C-alpha cells in the first residue's frame, strides 16, 4: 500500500522533494548562481530520469489521483521540457538575483500540472490548474524592472482569474446538474441538456484559455512578448502541453456523452484558431510574439487532431506535443541566448544572422521547419498524423482549409528563415559563444526533432498507450 503510494506518486514526490531541497538551500548560505544552476540542472535531470523507473497503473485518494503509463509519459515529457528550459535559461539566470525563487515557482507549477494531469476529480483539476497558473504569473514578472514584464504578468493574472471564474461557474453548474465532481462518474449523469452544454462551454473556455485557442487567446501574445524568455518558453510549451493532455482525456472520457457537441465545437475553434493565429503571425516582428501566434496556430492543428476523437487522435496529439516541445524549445533556446546576451528580440535583428552564427541559424531554421511541418523534421510527421486523425470524421473540406493554412504558416516561418539567410544587415548580431548548458539543450532538441519523426517507434509507443473515444 505504502509502496504503491510512493510508486504512483513518484513524480510528484520527486518534484516536491526538489522544491523543499531548494527551500533549504535558499535558507542556507549564499551560493554563486553558477553553482546553484549546476545543482538545479542536475536535479532536474534526475527528476526527468526518475520518471522512467517503475511506473504502474493506479488510483489514490479515492479518485482524486490516478495514473497510468500514458500519464507517466506525459509527465515525463513535461519533465524533459522543464529540464531543457532550465538548461537554456542559463545565460539569463546567471545574473539573476532570484534564481531559487524562480525555480520554486516553476517547480510548483510543474507540480500543479502533475496533479492536474492525474486528477480524477474536478476539484483536483481546478486546483492543479490554478497552481500551474498563479505562480507562473509571478514568474512572468521576473524581469523585475522591465515594464513589459510586469504588464505581461498583470495581463496573465487578470485574464486567468477571469477565465477561472468562468470555468468555476461551469464546474458549479456541472456539479449542480450531475451531482458529482468525479470525472469517471460524470458520463453517467451527462445527458446533453442545454444547461449542461452551457456548463461544458464554460469549462471548455477555461481549457481554451489555457491552450490559447481563438477567441480565448488574446492574452497569449502580450504575455509571451513581455515575459522573460524562459517563462515564455515554459508557457508556450509546458503549460500548454499539460492542459492539452488533460483536455484530451477529459473530453474523451468525462464528456463522452457530449461528443457530438464538442466535436463540432472543436472543429470551429480549431479552424478559427489556425486562421487567426496565422493571420496575426504574418505581421509580427517581435520574435516571441511571433512564436506566440505561431503556437496559437499550432494549437489549432492540435484541436483538429483531437476532434478526430480516435486512438489516432490521442496518440497524434501527444506525439505532436512531444515534437512541439523539441521544436519550440529549439527556437526558444536560440532566442533566449540572443536575448540574454544581446538583448535583441526582434526578427529584424536576426537579419544576416547566418553570417555570424551559422550553427545557431541552422538550429533555429530546423526548429522553424519542424514547426512548419517540413520533412524530414519531426514536425512533418506530427502535422501529418494530426490531420490524418482529424480527417477520420470525413470533414475533408475543413481539413483542406487547414492544410492550406499550413501554407500561410509556411510564409511566416520562411520569412524568418529569409531574414536569417537572405537579408543583408549592416550590423548583424555578433558571434555568440554558447554556454555548455545551452549547447546540450540545443543538441537534445535538434536530435529530438530529427529522431522523433523518422523513428516510428516513438509514435507506435505512444499509440500503444493511447485510447480513443
Amino acid at each position, binding site marked *: 500500500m505504502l509502496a504503491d503510494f510512493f510508486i504512483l506518486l513518484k513524480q510528484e514526490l520527486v518534484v516536491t522533494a526538489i522544491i523543499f531541497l531548494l527551500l533549504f538551500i535558499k535558507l542556507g548560505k549564499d551560493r554563486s548562481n553558477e553553482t546553484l544552476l549546476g545543482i538545479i540542472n542536475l536535479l532536474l535531470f534526475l527528476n526527468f530520469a526518475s520518471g522512467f523507473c517503475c511506473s504502474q497503473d493506479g488510483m489514490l485518494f479515492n479518485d482524486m489521483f490516478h495514473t497510468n503509463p500514458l500519464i507517466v509519459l506525459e509527465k515525463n515529457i513535461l519533465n524533459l521540457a522543464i529540464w531543457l528550459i532550465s538548461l537554456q535559461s542559463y545565460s539569463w539566470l546567471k545574473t539573476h538575483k532570484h534564481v531559487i525563487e524562480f525555480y520554486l515557482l516553476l517547480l510548483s507549477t510543474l507540480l500543479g500540472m502533475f496533479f492536474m494531469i492525474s486528477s480524477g476529480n474536478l476539484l483536483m483539476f481546478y486546483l492543479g490548474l490554478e497552481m500551474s497558473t498563479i505562480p507562473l504569473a509571478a514568474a512572468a514578472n521576473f524581469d523585475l524592472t522591465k515594464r513589459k514584464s510586469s504588464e505581461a504578468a498583470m495581463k496573465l493574472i487578470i485574464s486567468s482569474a477571469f477565465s477561472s471564474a468562468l470555468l468555476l461557474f461551469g464546474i458549479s453548474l456541472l456539479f449542480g446538474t450531475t451531482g458529482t465532481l468525479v470525472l469517471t462518474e460524470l458520463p453517467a449523469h451527462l445527458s446533453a441538456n442545454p444547461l449542461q452544454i452551457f456548463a461544458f462551454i464554460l469549462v471548455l473556455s477555461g481549457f481554451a484559455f489555457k491552450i490559447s485557442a481563438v477567441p480565448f487567446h488574446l492574452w497569449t501574445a502580450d504575455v509571451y512578448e513581455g515575459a522573460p524568455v524562459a517563462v515564455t518558453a515554459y508557457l508556450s510549451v509546458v503549460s500548454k502541453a499539460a492542459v492539452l493532455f488533460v483536455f484530451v482525456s477529459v473530453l474523451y472520457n468525462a464528456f463522452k456523452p457530449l461528443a457530438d457537441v464538442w466535436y463540432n465545437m472543436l472543429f470551429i475553434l480549431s479552424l478559427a484558431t489556425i486562421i487567426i493565429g496565422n493571420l496575426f503571425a504574418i505581421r509580427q516582428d517581435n520574435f516571441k510574439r511571433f512564436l506566440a501566434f505561431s503556437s496559437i496556430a499550432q494549437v489549432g492543428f492540435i484541436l483538429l487532431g483531437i476532434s478526430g476523437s480516435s486512438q489516432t487522435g490521442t496518440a497524434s496529439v501527444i506525439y505532436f506535443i512531444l515534437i512541439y516541445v523539441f521544436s519550440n524549445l529549439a527556437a526558444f533556446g536560440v532566442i533566449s541566448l540572443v536575448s540574454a546576451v544581446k*538583448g535583441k528580440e526582434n526578427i529584424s535583428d536576426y537579419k544576416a544572422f547566418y553570417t555570424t552564427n551559422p550553427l545557431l541559424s541552422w538550429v533555429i531554421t530546423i526548429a522553424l521547419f519542424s514547426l512548419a511541418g517540413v520533412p524530414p523534421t519531426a514536425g512533418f510527421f506530427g502535422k501529418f498524423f494530426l490531420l490524418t486523425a482529424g480527417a477520420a470524421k470525413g470533414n475533408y473540406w475543413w481539413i483542406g482549409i487547414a492544410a492550406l493554412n499550413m501554407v500561410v504558416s509556411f510564409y511566416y516561418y520562411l520569412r524568418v528563415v529569409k531574414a536569417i539567410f537572405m537579408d543583408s544587415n549592416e550590423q548583424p548580431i555578433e558571434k555568440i559563444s554558447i554556454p555548455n548548458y545551452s549547447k546540450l539543450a540545443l543538441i537534445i532538441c535538434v536530435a529530438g526533432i530529427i529522431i522523433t519523426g523518422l523513428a516510428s517507434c516513438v509514435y507506435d509507443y505512444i499509440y500503444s498507450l493511447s485510447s480513443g473515444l
Partner: protein
Amino acid sequence: MSASAIIFYAISAFLLGTGILAVTATNIFRAAIWLLFSLVGIAALYFWMQVEFVAAVQIIVYVGGIVILIIFSIFLTQQSGKEMPKPPLQRTIFSVLAAAFGLALTYLLISENGFTDGNGQPFKVAVSDIGMQMLSTTEHGYILPFEVVSMLLLAAMVGCIVIAMKSKQNNLPSPKNTEELS
C-alpha cells in the same frame, strides 16, 4: 412568504445592491467598502443556508484578509478620494450588453433546467466533520487537495515576496535595465 424567505430576499437585495455599488462607485475607497458589505452579505447568505463554517471562512478570509489587502494596496497606489477615470462609452455599452445577455441566457437555462430538489435528507454540516473529512485519506477524504493548496500558497507567497519586495537590483549595473527604464 415565510420569514426565512423574506430574510433571503433581503439579504439578496443587499448583497446585489452593494455589489452593484462596488463595481460602479467612482471613489475607489468607497468601492472597496461596498465590496466589503457585499461579501458580508454573502456570508449572511451562507448563514441563512446554515453552512456556518463556510460563512465563517468567508468572513475570516475575505473580510479579514483579502479586503484588507486590497485596501492596503489602495493606500499604496492611490490617493483615496480621487475619482477614478471612466471607461470609454463603447466599452460600457458592450459590457452592459454582455452582462445582461449573459445573465439572461444563464438564468434562462437554469430556470428551464427544472432542478429537482434533493431527496429531502437534512443537510447538517458539523465543523468537526468538515475537519475530519478534510484530513482524511480514505473515502471522501480531501487530504490531497489540502496539501496541494498548501503548496500553492507557499508558491504564491514566494512569488509575492520576490515581486513586491523593494528590489535592490536597480543598483546593479545592467545595461538592459537602464534601457528599459529610459
